[in-house]
């Protein structure tokens, strides 16, 4: 049977993730130290897990309202206000999704017409471009450079804008580079956004993971931007709850209504038990002033400093990331690009890192190293990488 004629052209044209194959090899070999995962190595706060279990015991195993538990949306509103000084109305502007990924897709689905362009900073998380394409849009990369510490600059944004531009995806703190956008940079972006009258999808899933005293500034907090921003966030990173799949979207009511409509028809509602767990995570957080997040961030910070120092010391230059839990060193000094480096490192030294080109063309000379691993495993891996680099380094 010739399936091609039955399948969606749009979907078939999306390239499969090349990374999968690489990590299928890495994951099978028990000796391999993987530095590839993009999820916390900490446990979900026990109060959250317990609330999830209790909700099952109590028989709360049915649908919630489409937009999610009212109490959870209230807590999220309170959390955003307390931690990032942004105000959203729980009932009309916030709803719960199955992870932040769903929220990204819904936002794009709700705003895009065929041929609309969406600007995606590069390098960035792998699912933005395919989501744009699946929603009938065209993804236009805006390259970010290590010289700018991988921030999106107003200039680079402006260059990517065309009359067809509908929106900008703003993924900071950034996966894979660890870049953050300080308030001043956001204000410059805001000017361009306003001038060209476009929307912004601000993916702030790593908002709690910032280092060196720099707290995250939400794009929705920049003057005049809330009305043209869809704020996307979730519990995966801040509360180490990746497997629970709880995210949320905050948007002006007109956009909210359209997004919720799609959510209602394709998802119904996020998992009820996960929502109870998330609710308890927030309540517990307020009780101890988010001490668990702070302890987690302190621990990431120690690993981050260790890696930056080691990598720069061995000649893999990397700028000091101020957010997320990745470092993004340049591997040019070995005469290899990121993909060659990652393959050879896996074969010879049994350490798995993610080639930078997975996150867009401009990441090709880099690799992503996650520090969601214990210091002692990072030390082992760094010793191996150092030996490997010594062997191949060109002067």
């Amino acid at each position, binding site marked *: 049977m010739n399936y091609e004629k039955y399948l969606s052209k749009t979907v078939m044209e999306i390239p499969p993730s090349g990374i999968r194959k690489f990590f299928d090899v890495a*994951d099978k070999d028990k000796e391999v130290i*993987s530095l590839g995962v993009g*999820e916390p*190595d900490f446990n979900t706060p026990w109060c959250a897990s317990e609330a999830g279990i209790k909700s099952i015991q109590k028989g709360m195993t049915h649908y919630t309202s489409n937009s999610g538990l009212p109490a959870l949306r209230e807590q999220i509103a309170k959390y955003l206000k307390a931690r990032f000084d942004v105000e959203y109305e729980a009932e009309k502007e916030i709803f719960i999704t199955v992870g932040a990924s769903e929220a990204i897709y819904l936002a794009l689905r709700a705003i895009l017409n065929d041929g609309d362009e969406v600007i995606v900073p590069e390098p960035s*998380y792998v699912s933005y471009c395919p989501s744009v394409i699946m929603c009938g849009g065209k993804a236009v990369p805006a390259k970010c450079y290590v010289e700018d510490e991988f921030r999106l600059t107003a200039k680079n944004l402006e260059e990517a804008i065309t009359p067809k531009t509908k929106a900008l995806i703003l993924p900071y703190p950034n*996966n894979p580079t660890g870049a953050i956008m300080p308030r001043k940079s956001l204000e410059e972006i805001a000017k361009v956004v306003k001038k060209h009258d476009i929307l912004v999808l601000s993916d702030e899933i790593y908002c709690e993971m910032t280092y060196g005293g720099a707290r995250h500034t939400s794009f929705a907090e920049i003057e005049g931007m809330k009305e043209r921003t869809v704020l996307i966030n979730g519990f995966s990173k801040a509360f180490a709850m990746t497997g629970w799949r709880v995210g949320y979207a905050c948007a002006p009511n007109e956009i909210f209504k359209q997004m919720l409509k799609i959510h209602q028809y394709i998802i119904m509602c996020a998992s009820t038990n996960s929502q109870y767990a998330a609710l308890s995570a927030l309540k517990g957080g307020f009780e101890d002033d988010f001490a668990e997040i702070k302890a987690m961030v302190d621990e990431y910070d120690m690993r981050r400093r260790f890696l930056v120092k*080691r990598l720069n010391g061995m000649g893999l230059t990397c700028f000091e990331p101020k957010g997320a839990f990745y470092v993004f060193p340049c591997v040019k000094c070995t005469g290899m690009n990121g993909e060659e480096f990652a393959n050879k490192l896996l074969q010879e030294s049994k350490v798995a890192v993610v080639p930078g080109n997975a996150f867009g063309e401009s990441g090709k000379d880099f690799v992503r190293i996650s520090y969601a691993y214990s210091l002692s495993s990072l*030390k082992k891996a760094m010793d191996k990488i150092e030996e490997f680099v010594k062997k191949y380094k060109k002067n």
Partner: protein
Amino acid sequence: MDNFDNKILKVLKDDSRFTAEQVADIVGLSAKDVQKRIKDMEDAGIIAKYTALCNTEKLSEDIVTALIEVKVTPQMSSGFDAIARDVYQFEEVKAVYLMSGAYDLCITVEGKNLREVSRFVSEKLSTMRDIISTATHFILKKYKTEGVILDDEDIEQQRQVIL
């Protein structure tokens, strides 16, 4: 002790083979400063020893470990201290703790085999003055010790690489 000392200890307690330079990078101090802090903690006895944690199940020689609950008569001036000191002098004794609850001292004893440990208890320990009674529990298997899981059957959760 401040927050930096706590961080230094946290790193070393997990892996004491980090060099002072590496610890300095991790906690964000100069190497010199870290060296001094480590030395101060060694001198003050805060860092008591650097050691290797062995999985006794995998050693070629057998080691038998017993936990012994001991009831004693506390003494007038020194309370439990004098008897505890008498007990920890023995080389076979690896740990001595004063406990709340049903008994007074908890002692860990190591020996080559059951007989050796039994002889220690019957000949040396229970005959000591002020010791009222002992209850010896032999450890059959160590699944986790000092925060390290020793269980080979432990199924490590596969963490998926999702970018």
